[in-house]
C-alpha cells in the first residue's frame, strides 16, 4: 500500500487517541468483521467541541483518518465540525489510496454519530439532515460504503 508521508505520520503518532470517560457524546461506526471500527468521543461546552478522542480498530488509513479528523474537529462549533467533508480529511492527509477512501467516510460518520448521541442525550433539536444521516449509518450493511 502506498501511503503518503502525512498518513504514516498520523498512523505512527496518532493524535487524540483514547477514551473520554465522562463524554457528552459517543459515535460508534463500523464493525470488527468489516476490518474497521471507530469510536469517537466528544466533550461539548457552549456548543463547542472542547475535547475529542478516538479509539479505532483498523488499518493504517483507518487510524490516520481518525487522528486527523479529531484535529480538524477540535475547538470547532458543532455546526462547523459537521461541515467537515471527506475531501477535507483526505486533503489534510495529502492523499489516500483510492481503495482506502471509505476510511475517511467512516471517520466523518463517527463524528456525526457522536453529535447525534450528544443531541439525543440532551434532548436538543436534531436537524432533518442529521437525522437522515444517522438513519443511513445505522442501516448500512455493506462493509465498504
Amino acid at each position: 500500500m502506498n501511503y503518503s508521508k502525512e498518513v504514516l505520520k498520523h498512523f505512527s503518532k496518532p493524535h487524540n487517541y483514547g477514551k473520554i470517560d465522562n463524554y457528552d457524546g459517543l459515535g460508534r461506526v463500523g464493525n470488527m468483521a468489516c476490518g474497521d471500527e471507530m469510536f469517537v468521543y466528544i466533550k461539548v461546552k457552549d456548543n463547542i467541541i472542547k475535547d475529542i478522542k478516538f479509539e479505532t480498530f483498523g488499518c493504517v488509513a483507518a487510524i490516520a483518518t481518525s487522528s486527523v479528523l479529531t484535529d480538524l474537529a477540535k475547538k470547532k462549533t458543532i455546526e462547523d465540525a459537521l461541515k467537515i467533508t471527506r475531501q477535507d480529511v483526505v486533503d489534510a492527509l495529502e492523499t489516500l489510496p483510492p481503495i482506502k477512501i471509505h476510511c475517511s467516510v467512516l471517520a466523518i460518520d463517527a463524528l456525526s454519530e457522536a453529535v447525534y448521541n450528544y443531541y439525543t442525550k440532551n434532548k436538543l433539536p436534531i436537524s432533518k439532515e442529521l437525522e437522515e444521516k444517522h438513519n443511513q449509518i445505522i442501516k448500512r450493511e455493506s462493509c465498504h460504503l
Partner: protein
Amino acid sequence: MIYFDYAATTPVDKRVIKSMIPFLNEKFGNPSSMHSFSSDTKKALEKSRSIIAKAIKANPEEIVFTSSATESNNMALKGIAFAKKSGHILVSSIEHDCVLNAAKWLGKNGFEVEFLPVDKYGIVDPKEVEKRIKKNTILVSVMHVNNEVGTIQPIEAIGKICKKNNIYFHSDAAQSFSKTPINITNIDLLTISSQKIYGPKGAAALFIKDGVKIEPLLHGGGQERGLRSSTENVPAIVGFAKATEIAISTMDKEQERLTKLRDKIIEKLTKEVPNCYLNGHKTKRISNNINVRFSHIEGEAILFMLNSYGIAVSTASACSSPKLEPSHVLSAMGLKQEEAHGSIRISLGRMTKESEVNYLLKVLPEVVKKLRDISPHK
C-alpha cells in the same frame, strides 16, 4: 531493516550470482544454435537439468524449465486439461492464486472443477480426495506446503489414492522444495521455483513424470522437448541449479536450525502476548513459517508499525488486499473475518540470525500493545 518475508522471495546467494555471470557475459550463445557459441550454454543447460532432477530423484528428461512457479502451475493444470480435453479436476481450496485462478478459468471453459475443503489447521484430508473422485476425474492438485500458514500436506497419501484410481496428481512445491524432503513416487507433476531458494527470479521448473501426456502452453521453436518453446533463460537456469545444490546440501542442518527459531517465536508470542494464536499446525509445518493472529488489531497496521521499527513481515489481511477480501486460506480454515484481520506471517530464511529473532520478539509485543491502546477493544 530486518527481513522476515523469505516465503515471499529470497535474496540471491552470492555463490549463485557468481555462477550466473559467465552466462551473462561471454557465454551468451543460444543453446539451439549450431556454432561453438552455443556449446557451453547447451552443456550448462543440461547440467542444470541433471542437478535439479537429482534433487528430487527424477530423470533429467522429466524436468521442463519455465519462467516462474505461476507458469509451471498453469502448465500443469491447463496442459493436462487440454490433453484430456474434458473432465473433472480436484483442487484444494488453499492453493496459491495461480493454481486457484487457473482452475477457475478451466471451470469457465468446459471443465468440471471442484475445491477440496481443509480442516482447521489448513490440511487436506486424503479421505476427502477419495470421496470426491469421479469416473471422469483427470487431475488432482494439492500443494506440498501452504504459502500462508506453512502446513505440510499429506501428498504421499493423496498421491497413492490418485495412482490407485489412475488419475494424474500435481503438487505445487514452491514453498517446500529444498526445505523438506519430497517423495515423487506417486507424483505425476511437481512445481518448483528458483526465487524461493536464493536463486534468481525468472527460473522455475515443472517435473513431468515420464509417460504423462501434456499439451504445451507456448508454441514456437520447440525447446524443452516441444513442451515449452522460448529461448532458454540460461543464466537464470544455471543460477537455479546452483541454488538447488547449495540448498539441498545444507537442508537437514538448516531445517533443524530454523525449526528451533520458529518454535521459539511461536512459543514466546502465544504464551506471552495475550490473545495471540497460531494459525496452522504446530508440527506439520514447514520450518521457516510462523503465522499468528492477534485479537482486536488489524494486520496491515501491525505490518506498517513493524516496518517503522525496521522489521519486514507480511499479512493477508483483507485491508491489505487489493479487493479488501480476507485471505482465502484463513477463511477455508474456518477463521471468522474478525480473526483473519489480525493475522501476520513471519517467514525465516538462511540469513535469519538469532539476534534478529530476539529483536522481533522484543518489538512485536510492544507494537501489539500500542495498537491495542488505540483500539476500542482491548
